[in-house]
């Protein structure tokens, strides 16, 4: 197996076996692991790292929903239903706590449900401010991060020093920089970094220790740089939405010769595109990052920059079109869609809206949509 394949298979293994990754890490280090719910656990992740624990992304998965229906209504998204189902089935039994941000209406009740159903595992609510850009909002969030840090210290049995937190911020910033570098480089090797492998690299970062992920990214970047640039003959797309699963959709993109050259996914570039700015006060630095962050349906944005961000991605990466992966029942994303649609249509950028759910038994309708979109781009 060549070096690139070998590295990619390590990312793939982690993306497919998060439970195993956590078990191995706990065995090796003797330290604890904390589950981080979507979308805005950034900041808390640095705190978990500074307390010597492993942050583990909890973005649901493909399972059959049964017990979760007792707690969540039919109109809740499939990600949160899967998270609750996994929690109730004991899939998260190796986790020593949860970080649960108030990302959306459904997620506001998740801390209560997790406490009710798993009383032995501590749940730390992270209440993010709507008024995130004004000084009181930033100061509030810095205090909120301190409170979250105190709860995490209690679980870890270890104090989070400012020095440790500054170091963790540096580790995460370095990882984000490498992710950004990889995603740009991937566009020169679209024959190797298919939509599926692109997703594997991104997804594995939610489970692997950041240092390990950065090390593998470095190796992958070096190996890719040694290869000649591949001239992609198919069409190129930018994807936006919460996530791009089930996996079958990723393979369909390849079937129709569509390459992903940029993303604005919540489980993707939205996690990496903002570094924590330099500064002396680590909690204020984390709070400032949330204030500076743009282009997510779940954070207050009165000027609606997301359409512009996506248009820039199209331009920078010479994409032929945009695919909106609309997570069913995700109200914030649905509210953003008309703005994105208008922005892209005004710029004559072809756009495809695809409704997805994590628990999809049949993806044939999506196949027809993707195929028709690829045929439409070919005719342009």
């Amino acid at each position, binding site marked *: 197996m060549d070096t690139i394949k070998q590295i990619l298979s390590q990312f793939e293994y982690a993306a497919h076996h998060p439970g195993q990754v956590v078990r191995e890490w706990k065995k090796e280090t003797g330290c604890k692991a904390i589950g981080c719910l979507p979308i805005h656990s950034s900041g808390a992740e640095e705190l978990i790292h500074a307390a010597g624990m492993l942050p583990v992304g909890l973005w649901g998965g493909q399972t059959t929903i049964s017990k979760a229906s007792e707690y969540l209504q039919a109109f809740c998204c499939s990600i949160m239903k899967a998270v609750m189902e996994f929690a109730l089935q004991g899939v998260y039994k190796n986790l020593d706590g949860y970080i649960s941000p108030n990302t959306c209406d459904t997620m506001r009740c998740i801390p209560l449900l997790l406490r009710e159903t798993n009383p032995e595992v501590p749940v730390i609510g992270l209440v993010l401010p709507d008024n995130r850009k004004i000084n009181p909002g930033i100061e509030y969030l810095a205090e909120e991060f301190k409170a979250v840090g105190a709860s995490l210290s209690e679980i870890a049995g270890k104090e989070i020093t400012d020095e440790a937190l500054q170091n963790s911020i540096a580790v995460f910033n370095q990882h984000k920089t490498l992710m950004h570098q990889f995603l740009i480089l991937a566009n020169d090797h679209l024959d190797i970094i298919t939509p599926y492998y692109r997703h594997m690299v991104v997804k594995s970062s939610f489970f692997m220790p950041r240092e390990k992920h950065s090390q593998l990214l470095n190796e992958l970047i070096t190996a890719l740089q040694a290869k000649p640039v591949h001239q992609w003959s198919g069409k190129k797309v930018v994807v936006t939405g919460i996530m791009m699963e089930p996996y079958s959709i990723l393979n369909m993109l390849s079937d129709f010769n569509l390459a992903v050259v940029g993303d604005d996914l919540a489980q993707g570039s939205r996690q990496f595109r903002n570094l924590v700015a330099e500064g002396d006060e680590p909690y204020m630095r984390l709070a400032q990052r949330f204030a500076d962050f743009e282009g997510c349906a779940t954070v207050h944005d009165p000027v609606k920059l997301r359409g512009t961000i996506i248009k820039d991605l199209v331009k920078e990466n010479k994409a032929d079109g945009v695919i909106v992966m609309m997570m069913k029942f995700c109200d914030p994303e649905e509210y953003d869609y008309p703005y994105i649609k208008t922005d892209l249509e005004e710029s004559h950028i072809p756009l495809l809206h695809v409704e997805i759910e994590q628990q999809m038994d049949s993806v044939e*309708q999506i196949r027809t949509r993707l195929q028709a979109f690829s*045929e*439409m781009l070919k*005719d*342009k």
Partner: protein
Amino acid sequence: MLTMGVDIGSASSKVVILRDGAEILAGVAVPVGTGTTGPARALQQALEIAKVERDEISKVVVTGYGRMTYEGADEQVSEITCHAKGVHHLIPSARTIIDIGGQDAKVIKLDEQGYVSNFVMNEKCAAGTGRFLEVMARVLEVHVSELEVLGDKANNVVPISSTCTVFAESEVISQLAAGQKSSDVVAGIHQSVARRVAGLAGRVGITPTVVITGGVAQNAGVVKALEKELKIPITVAPRSQLTGALGAALIAFESLVKASNKTVG
């Protein structure tokens, strides 16, 4: 040169045999779709009508829900592209296509060259499709083809939900139990389909000329209800069930012409 388009839907199988990308030698629709004997029967009947052998056909393009599993074609193309091609060939002024099939409803926008510029499809729900009409026809104890005539006799429109086929079925039963005339209920059923499809159409926008295709286009009651909802005249495509298969046959012809030009060049 002969080409063939095969459109295997969820409810019917259609075949068109075309000579030189212009003359339709045969167009057949068999009312059973993917996973049945429909595709083979439609193919056989089309060959008999056209009086040609399978070997004489230079290229076959398959489309529709059953396109992925059909083994008798040289290429498979999505039904959206095929409907666009077929309708543009028949009605070059068409800018919006509303296609209502057995379990899909689609609205396709075309540019001046007849290429797809945007499209929307219904989500995983039978409301607003042919299946919805079939379910309602069963409750009313009539054949789906009789709905049009029945709806024509309506004096009133009994509102029927357009969100869910199962709920709508219960509503129809309740309305009949409450003594509503079946013709008035049928008018409500047609309105329900029209409202659902109009909602879909609103997402891409409606530009004239609007053309309707698919099996449901043969029900003038639905077409009238849709015209009322969209406030725009709608042209029913000639042999509306066959436009997808026709488009597939045209795509087969064009690809052969393109390949031969390349060879000559």
